[in-house]
């Protein structure tokens, strides 16, 4: 509705070098860094104060999580190629690669669900120990972020992709923004959650 009256939706403002959504998504990511930073800080505090803290390897399924990590990395790479397809006016490539990315994201969630279920089956609940509490909370919050990303990517792949015909630049920009968010969620897992929870 207000699309016509707000400038710099796609083109960059000269003195800031940004368009609106790019600046917006980076600010959002800064707040996400604070969110997971707070959880990470809580992890350190709880671990230092604990009499006994299990190593990730002794409780968690590392081979499964490693496989899951590479699935997520793959989904990020797929998003890059989806975006590249749009830049080169190859809508088919966008559709294919975005679908691959979403399937990878979905697979990640499925494996995560399986992982959680295996914990519950063995009587390992969030209430069992502080390690498990922070593990379930951090990975659970991360999974919620994946679900959010899948919803956005799904919209852009499906009903939202109609915009490519009328306004390819705007649509490509939207995919780029969604991609930045998706990479962040992926990097959060690869750099922080997986090494800290599973390996340390």
């Amino acid at each position, binding site marked *: 509705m207000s699309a016509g009256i707000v400038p710099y939706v796609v083109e960059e403002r000269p003195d*800031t070098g940004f368009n609106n959504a790019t600046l917006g998504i980076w600010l959002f990511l*800064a707040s996400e860094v604070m969110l997971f*930073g707070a959880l*990470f800080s809580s992890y350190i505090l709880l671990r230092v104060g604990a009499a006994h803290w299990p190593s990730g390897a002794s409780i968690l399924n590392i081979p499964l999580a490693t496989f899951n990590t590479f699935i997520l990395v793959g989904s990020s790479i797929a998003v*890059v190629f989806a975006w590249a397809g749009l830049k080169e006016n190859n809508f088919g490539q966008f559709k294919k690669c975005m679908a691959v990315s979403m399937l990878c994201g979905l697979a990640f969630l499925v494996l995560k669900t399986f992982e959680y279920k295996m914990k519950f089956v063995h009587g390992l609940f969030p209430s069992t120990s502080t390690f498990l509490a922070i593990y379930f909370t951090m990975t659970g919050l991360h999974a919620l972020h994946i679900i959010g990303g899948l919803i956005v990517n799904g919209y852009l792949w499906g009903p939202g992709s109609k915009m490519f015909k009328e306004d390819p630049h705007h649509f490509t920009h939207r995919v780029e923004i969604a991609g930045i968010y998706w990479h962040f969620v992926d990097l959060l897992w690869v750099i922080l959650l997986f090494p800290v929870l599973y390996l340390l």
Partner: protein
Amino acid sequence: MSANTNSPSTSQMVGIYSRLFGLLSVITLVGIAAVYFFHIPVWVAMAVGLVLIALKGTIVVDSFKQFMVGRNIIVMVFTMTGIFVLGLLLLPVLNHSDRLVGTQDISKQMQMETKEGGGHHGD
């Protein structure tokens, strides 16, 4: 996006991303190998883990700097964020070190006592 003439072209971007994720994957495998296959002691695992995390972070920042040519606002925002995250990371330090003389963190003591006394769900 391409109004900024310094920003990389599409194929350059794809190249940067691919290299980024490739490097991250390799480092991740190194970390897994260290912990899962070589069974190093905990404190070594911590040190190795922290080094690898720092390495990954540096590579990410470096890669994204190439996209963010001349975008001072974001650099400033993330510098502030980084400083505040470091502040947040002070919390464990504040909580556990530098207590008043004569007071201790009895939580650890209590945990060990209750473990010996037995009776909570296994750990």
